């Protein structure tokens, strides 16, 4: 897996490179917008980490240039601009996700893994994980043929987890995507909803599907033996 890190702040770029190299990624660095545009266009990357404030050509312009040429390339925008309007502009220009500075490396790493495995968002109307089935059109959920009633927020949360099945999802990713909020919060609302979902999805089932990833967040994935 090869990542292009576009960051004009050299110490930060080197820190990110070291972190991802330790996780066995190959990492290239571009320090300005023009260099980033040329490298992303000429070489094959699995993901681009793109800063918005760049010399020569800003990040949004790089994104607008790249998107038509490489529609499948996941782009995660790193930005110190935190206003909702700035995020909207980046997402409208084709970013797949945004992360505000200052960020923690584990948050960045979790988001990169989620994007790497996802590619572009799935258009499937029916999502499956083991014997759990979620129909996005009929808004219906079944586990082993048993119908499960969910509130609209529980449904949105489960859908988000299932769209990212097998990936670690942080609490802030859930708050952003399910609650549509973008601020640092230590609210326990996510944990409470996950507990409710667990009761409805996993209790009485042959195996657990919703897992806690310590220090990171949650993941929905194939069976884990139920402790006896």
């Amino acid at each position, binding site marked *: 897996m090869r990542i292009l890190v576009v960051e004009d702040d050299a110490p930060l770029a080197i820190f990110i490179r070291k972190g991802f190299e330790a996780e066995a990624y190959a990492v290239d660095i571009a320090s300005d917008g023009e260099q980033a545009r040329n490298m992303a266009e000429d070489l094959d990357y699995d993901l681009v980490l793109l800063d918005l404030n760049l010399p020569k050509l800003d990040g949004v312009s790089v994104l607008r240039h790249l998107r038509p040429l490489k529609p499948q390339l996941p782009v995660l925008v790193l930005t110190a601009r935190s206003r909702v309007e700035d995020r909207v502009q980046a997402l409208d220009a084709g970013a797949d996700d945004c992360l505000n500075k200052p960020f923690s490396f584990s948050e960045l790493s979790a988001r990169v893994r989620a994007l790497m495995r996802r590619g572009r968002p799935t258009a499937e109307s029916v999502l499956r994980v083991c014997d759990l089935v979620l129909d996005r059109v009929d808004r219906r959920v079944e586990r082993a043929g048993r119908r499960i009633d969910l509130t609209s927020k529980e449904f949105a949360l489960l859908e988000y987890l299932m769209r990212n099945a097998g990936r670690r999802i942080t609490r802030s990713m859930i708050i952003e995507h399910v*609650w549509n*909020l973008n601020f640092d919060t230590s609210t*326990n609302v996510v944990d409470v909803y996950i507990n409710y979902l667990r009761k409805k999805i996993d209790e009485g089932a042959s195996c657990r599907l919703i897992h806690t990833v310590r220090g990171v967040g949650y993941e929905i994935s194939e069976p884990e033996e139920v402790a006896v």
Partner: protein
Amino acid sequence: MNSAQTGERSFANDHQRFVSDVFHHLGQPLTELRCSIELALRKPLDCAGYREALGSALQAANRVVDAASFARQLAEAEYPGGNLRVLDVTRVLQEAIDDFLPVADDAKVAMAWRMVDPVFIRADPARLHEMLFRVMDCVLHAASSGTMLTVSVESGDVQASLNFSTHFQPLLWAEPSDRDCPKPPEEMHRSLQVARRMVQAIGGTLLETADSIGNTIRIRLPLAENSETVLIG
């Protein structure tokens, strides 16, 4: 002229207080960060010693990030948002209540609500959603097991009033909640400060009161002009 001068003075005071608060919140963790690095470099340490020093530095750095993030949120809260429009505040509040029902249940806090609808105000939908999320989050975190939370919306001639009152009702539950320890009061206070600024940014006020029976947060927001609500109503 006088009122313009008063406004300018109040803005300058607010700005000064803001800078002073930010400096205060950043100063302490930055000092801890610098000291822990200085101490680690003063003499050679063994592996465990370096690990401990780095752990302290990381904790202090996290507090710097929290403080910087709080300062950013406070500054942003002064901006009313780029998508100001006429909204039915009862609908947005109902969504927030629905979101927090499981949280209240988990905390063994009973919730009741009373609203006259619709009540139109002028706000940015995303900002209003965030502000009500913060208020509900703070109110529920502060409420202990066995509390009754009553949410109501009232509409006057020129203002809407959103009230969040908690009263302790010891007989509501036999057993206390086993929920995880709520977040620290300082964090709740910060979140409420941001919410207060968001309210002020759209011309409203947020007041907290406490008496022997319980706590109340009252938010007053200016109603949208009649001419603006005709099309929606």
